[in-house]
């Protein structure tokens, strides 16, 4: 279930209420988000669309605890994150959020294995346990045979798949994807989207994705448009669009 009118109950995974985000630029206040409401249940795949500067990435940053709102509340799995200290928010991100960025943002001096292992170094897992987790994540994204490659030795699509493996390796509550296919050709984009669909469908992950691309957005269960700082519900698709079907 996805709602944007604030009518959702407390049972959802994500509850956003009256969210404002205002930037100050050169003495002028820019209201990016204004009284935004959002409810997302676990297992949903939501795409946010909107013109440049509409606040899509800002919303994603707020949901991921990378930025703080000017007003309003964000509750994720029972945690009210808007009042958390920076340290608590960092711990919360490590536990609950998997990030997938447009530019992959892999560490170039680490291998695919080491990149995927990064979130696990913050846990108390043993070396052997970490290895098992990393190999599992890499096998989900189909890159077991590339685990010792450095990012420069991988294609763009493979790099993004490593990023996805890094995002899921610690089994976070939800994934935030900021233009995950924005830097990929259509074929690689299809592969990445198929992977995200599989994570939602087979692994019951919740995915919130920002995209400019209507074909990519069409792969989500729900499309929401950002308009004048609030969310407007767009087309909804059943969870049955075949991978690559709209590409």
């Amino acid at each position, binding site marked *: 279930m996805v709602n944007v009118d604030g009518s959702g109950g407390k049972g959802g995974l994500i509850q956003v209420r009256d969210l404002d985000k205002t930037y100050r630029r050169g003495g002028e206040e820019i209201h990016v988000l204004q009284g935004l409401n959002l409810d997302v249940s676990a297992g949903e795949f939501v795409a946010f669309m909107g013109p440049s500067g509409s606040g899509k990435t800002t919303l994603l940053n707020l949901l*991921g605890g990378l930025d703080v709102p000017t007003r309003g509340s964000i509750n994720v799995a029972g945690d009210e994150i808007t009042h958390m200290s920076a340290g608590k928010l*960092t711990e919360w991100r490590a536990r609950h959020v998997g990030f997938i960025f447009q530019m992959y943002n892999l560490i170039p001096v680490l291998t695919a294995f080491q990149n995927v292992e990064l979130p696990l*170094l913050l846990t108390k897992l043993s070396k052997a346990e970490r290895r098992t987790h990393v190999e599992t994540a890499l096998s989900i994204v189909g890159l077991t045979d590339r685990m010792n490659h450095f990012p420069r030795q991988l294609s763009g699509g493979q790099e993004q798949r490593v990023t996805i493996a890094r995002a899921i390796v610690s089994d976070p509550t939800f994934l935030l994807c900021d233009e995950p296919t924005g830097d990929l050709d259509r074929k690689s984009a299809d592969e990445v989207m198929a992977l995200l669909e599989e994570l939602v469908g087979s692994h019951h992950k919740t995915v919130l994705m920002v995209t400019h691309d209507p074909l990519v957005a069409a792969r989500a269960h729900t499309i929401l448009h950002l308009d004048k700082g609030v969310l407007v519900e767009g087309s909804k698709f059943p969870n049955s669009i075949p991978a690559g079907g709209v590409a």
Partner: protein
Amino acid sequence: MKFARIIWANLLRKKVRLLLTIGSFAVALFLFVFLAVVRDAFNRGADVASADRLVVINRTSIINPIPLSYRDKILRIPGVKAVTHNNWFGGIYIEEKNFFPQFVIDPENQRTVFSELVVPDDQWKAFLNDRQGAIAGAKLAERFHWKIGDRIPIKTTFYGGASWEFNLVGIYHGNKPQSDETQFWLQWDYFEEKVPERDKGRIGWYVLRIDNPDDAPRISQAIDDEFANSPFETKTQAESAFAANWVKQFGNIQRLIVSIGVVVFFTLLLVTGNTMAISVRERTSELAVFKAIGYSDRSVLFFVLAEALTIALIGGLLGMLLAIVAVPGLAAALNGLLPSIVLAPKMLAFGLVVAIFTGFLSGFLPGMNAMHLRIVNALRRV
């Protein structure tokens, strides 16, 4: 440690820059340690000075002599255990660059007063039995490849310019690592016999051993009072004060060396600090990713500091190694101008502390910047 791989990988991303930074660290640390060693050498006299030794010189200046006849009067002062006397010979061995200190000594009391400079008994006996006998410090003998039995000509500069011949009959060793083993000792009797009439019966300074160091002020005062208003008034001081005054003759060496050291330190700090700042700036977005996926601000600071400290430690250790290899050679090149250049373990420890401190400082500011990165801003910088 599970983060070591990340630190190493980051260090090795720009290998040439890493090598150059480590190299500058090594050279600067070597220079720093060498300066410390030279400073230490200048102060060595004060370090090896014995608390129960006093030095009596002419009140006007050390280059003015004192009569030998003072010896018995000094010995009569209560608390004085033994008295010996020295003259500065100031000769040239083959050519001027072969400088080393030559002292005319009083064989009767030398070993009592300077018990830390050890001469084997058989060699000492040979010295007593040969008026032309001479004893060299172990480092001096090594420097000129002298061995016992060698005949050593030394041209005087004060006594008519003639060449005096000496028989090397002994080699002394210091029983402390910092002991001065670069002196050359010759016999008082032989010296007294050969100097012009005007210089006979005149010594350069007395060195005396006293029973109790606590009595030093009283004894010093008693000696100087004894010879007050005479043609040769004296100035008696503790050996350490005498050594410190000796160093002052070279000007304010301490301040000069410390000033150079401070400049070296700050230059090193700027070089490594700049390198770390560039290194952090280059991977702003990577650091933001670390923070986004759950690494705390302190973890990011730790990574930057660990990199800076690793560079500092490797560079510092290389600098120490360079010092261990090069200091003996540089000491030889100084031709004995300084009493004894010794690379003591405390110098190496000091160098290492400077390295770690510099590494910490050079990484601290860039690390703080990395720590305070705003993730959303930093992620935009790709």
